[in-house]
């Protein structure tokens, strides 16, 4: 690969040297530097790259990948950026659209960051050509700001939208062979494990209590609004503004993570009381014990239900019903 590049460079050098074109075709110079991904830039090469006149598009990411800047998105997006530039450089693209990918790290280009007055990173700039067939009158770069995690697909569609119409190479994500192999190995290992351990696992799987417990837990989770927490990403608890903790969110369609856990446990206690009263109590042979257990479970049920109603009343102001203790 290296040798090939060397020859390529050599060939280019000669072709540049012997052709009638001036030897300073910036596009080809940087194209060569890019090693089929993006060009690593610093202040001076950045200035050179974007200086007028230019007859090519250039997409440049201004980023800060070093750990000391603490830019998580920058580091996460770096690999996505490589995917974009690689897909473009290696894909079959129309001849007349010339596009260069570059990346300028903050450690290499502090002056540029200052000149552009950038407060945040990463930022993607796309410079249109100033001469050539696709030249734009307005030579100012187009700017893409990151408002959150962005996938390569999103940015790539944004870039291609600003290029002239025509076929563009598709975005190709490299196949992760390692992952496929490891997945297959894991699956085989799992099957082997299950076959070997089946005498021990089968009784567990066939245990009715286990399945009952699993389904009850699932039902309690879902009916107490766990999916709401998951989708809306609600906070676990919130302060009440007086230094304390408010366990219950105000409003009917609003809740905290802890609130749902409290509700789930209330539902759990109530159902368990019901199960106990319906199934366990009639099976107690001793008279006195039975009487005592019934009173206890009945009281627990009443108290819990009353508490549940009072909680619901705080969520829904106009609710008129209540039960005695709370």
């Amino acid at each position: 690969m290296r040798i090939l590049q060397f020859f390529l460079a050599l060939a280019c050098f000669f072709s540049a040297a012997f052709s009638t074109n001036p030897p300073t075709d910036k596009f080809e110079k940087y194209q060569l530097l890019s090693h089929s991904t993006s060009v690593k830039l610093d202040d001076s090469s950045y200035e050179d790259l974007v200086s007028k006149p230019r007859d090519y598009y250039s997409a440049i990411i201004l980023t800060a990948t070093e750990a000391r800047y603490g830019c998580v998105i920058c580091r996460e997006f770096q690999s996505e950026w490589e995917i974009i530039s690689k897909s473009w450089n290696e894909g079959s693209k129309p001849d007349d659209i010339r596009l260069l990918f570059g990346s300028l790290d903050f450690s290499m280009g502090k002056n540029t960051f200052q000149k552009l007055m950038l407060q945040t990173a990463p930022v993607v700039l796309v410079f249109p050509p100033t001469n050539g067939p696709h030249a734009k009158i307005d030579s100012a770069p187009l700017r893409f700001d990151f408002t959150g995690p962005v996938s390569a697909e999103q940015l790539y569609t944004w870039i291609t939208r600003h290029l002239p119409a025509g076929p563009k190479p598709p975005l190709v994500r490299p196949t992760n062979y390692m992952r496929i192999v490891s997945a297959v190995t894991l699956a085989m290992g799992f099957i082997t494990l299950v076959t070997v351990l089946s005498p021990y696992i089968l009784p567990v799987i066939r245990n009715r209590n286990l399945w009952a417990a699993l389904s009850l837990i699932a039902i309690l989770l879902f009916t107490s609004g766990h999916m709401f927490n998951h989708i809306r990403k609600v906070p676990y608890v919130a302060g009440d503004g007086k230094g304390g903790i408010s366990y219950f969110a105000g409003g009917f369609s609003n809740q905290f993570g802890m609130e749902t856990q409290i509700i789930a446990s209330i539902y759990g206690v109530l159902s368990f009381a019901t199960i106990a009263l319906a199934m366990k109590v009639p099976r107690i042979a001793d008279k006195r014990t039975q009487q005592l257990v019934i009173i206890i479970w009945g009281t627990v049920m009443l108290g819990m239900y009353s508490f549940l109603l009072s909680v619901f009343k705080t969520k829904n102001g106009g609710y008129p019903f209540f039960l005695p203790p709370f």
Partner: protein
Amino acid sequence: MASPSLDVLLKGNSSRNVRGLLRIIILCTIAAAAVSSRLFSVIRFESIIHEFDPWFNFRATKYLVQHGFYKFWDWFDDRTWHPLGRVTGGTLYPGLMVTSGVIYHVLRFLTIPVDIRNICVLLAPGFSGLTALAMYLLTNEMSSSPSAGLLAAVFMGITPGYISRSVAGSYDNEAIAIFLLVFTFYLWIKAVKNGSIMWGTLAALFYGYMVSAWGGYVFITNLIPLHVFVLLCMGRYTSRVYISYTTWYALGTLASMQIPFVGFLPIRNSDHMSALGVFGLLQLVAFADFVRGFVPGKQFQKLLTAMILIVFGFALLGLVLLTVSGVIAPWSGRFYSLWDTGYAKVHIPIIASVSEHQPTAWPAFFFDLNFLIWLFPAGVYLCFRQLKDEHVFVVIYAVLSSYFAGVMVRLMLTLTPVVCVAAALAVSHILDTYLVASKPSEASETKPTADNNQSGLRSTRNPVVGVYSYLSKFFISAMMIVYLLLFVSHCTWVTSNAYSSPSVVLASRMPDGSQHIIDDYREAYYWLRQNTPANAKIMSWWDYGYQIGGMADRPTLVDNNTWNNTHIATVGKAMSSREEVSYPILRQHDVDYVLVVFGGLLGYSGDDINKFLWMVRIAEGIWPDEVKERDYFTARGEYRVDDEATPTMRNSLMYKMSYYNFNSLFGGGQAVDRVRGARLPAEGPQLTTVEEAFTSENWIIRIYKVKDLDNFGRDHSSAVAFDKGHKKKRATKKKGPRVLRTE
């Protein structure tokens, strides 16, 4: 207490008849209660169709009744989605309309002249009575207790989770679909229990009816195969399962393919592939079971099992390949967004924008189901006690539907039936235990029980004795009765307060407590009907499309059917852009009037400014360069309408139309938007390309007429400026110093 005369009634052969009669009377009473608790809105307001979608169903039903069945089947509607039109006959679920059409014609045949509107309004309550009956049948299959079925019927009849979609006037697909859902499940359970082709066929027929009525039929399509699959995994393959499933699948699929809207989906869509896969698996298992009878060798049987697994694996692989290659369509967006909960927000903003597609917070569960929600897990646990085939069904149904209901508010509807079954099982078990007058004898301790085996539940190891003391019996029964009474009052309160508003007509209270009706919607729609030409095109946000079509009878650009995202985005773009950008769009789509909903005067929060961001988002999905959501937020990321609103916001057509002339209402004072609690800029927006045509009494609906092109060929802003007497600024005003021309 038991006098000899009562003994005659309660014992022996006659008691069976008496109990049967009692049962019938009780069921009739339940059905009557179910119907009557849904009539609040008719009594309080009037017999009127509610909400949005019902207006389309009503319009379609009227078309069906007027033009007959075949015309309805081929109906191309050119009065919606102007200029595209909609192949309505092929893109709707016709079950609801056909049902009310049949009822209408039967009543006419019996010479009972009933208006079609009244049939539509009262269809949902009527079917809820039938649902209660179906619930009774379904629950009776689950339990030997005589009270379980009746309790389930009562719960189903009055629980708000079901009432929310079936009050009088809510003429929507769900009105009949829930009855069909429950009844199909009953027939399926019956088929599995008896292994009879007849019950399987009936299940398939009602499944076909269900397909014709509601898109939620996919739930049945996946639940029944799952039930069979779990039974197979539990090693419970029997010829009963084989007979009932193959009958149901073959006939049910054929029946569902008769609906034009469904067509070939059952063999070309991933939603339906689980049914097909289980059908194939069942054939394999049946074959193995058949061969096993002849070849007893243990090695051979192992080989057979391995063969089945391998064939099944390959079939699964083939299915995946077909899906990837595109022969089989992947999961439909709506269904897929149930599993990948972030999917809709990114890819289908139209689905994410609907309020009933939001996830469910816990108060909503309690609000809709009250104490059933905590009896529900107990009832499911009781199902594990016997765990026959039908109990497996209840358990699967319970877990799946509670997940679905958690993800989408609207699917609370599918959860409600299983909650009622499970809760009724729990309550009936308690009542059966504690309402027995006779005491257990001390000797009964040693009685052996049948279910005392190892595979049973932990809590059923000991033999049943019974409850000894009257005190505990009284305590528990009284408690349960209090809870039941509380449940009834909760249901009545919820129904009357939350679910009986037609949303076309709004009710408010005057200071003296009397009711005041706000009737702006109908006022505005009636104005359109009376004052505009019959084919004037009305543009509004898609929420109001069905109502305009139904009440004003005018063509609309987009409606609640939302089948064409681009067209909706076009409307969104017109609403969210500057007038100069919007006007060409309006002209291109022949728009005559633009309708906006504005709640700022009254404090009505469901207005267009609150929905505006969705219009922007949907438009941005198609034109990301021209409409940007960021531009509608201030620098600090707030969505504001007052002085600090962004220029893009203030220049958008929607903003201008909402607040046009609003200042004049407040005399000299500053205008206040009551919904957003914002003080508006002192100078109101100016409109140049549209002019105010109508504003309803409480300003909820505002209608603007789109101006024609200017007679002198000016653009509208300069024409308006001229009319106001502003002097036209000449471009040549600033001249340099005069120079002598030398030629």
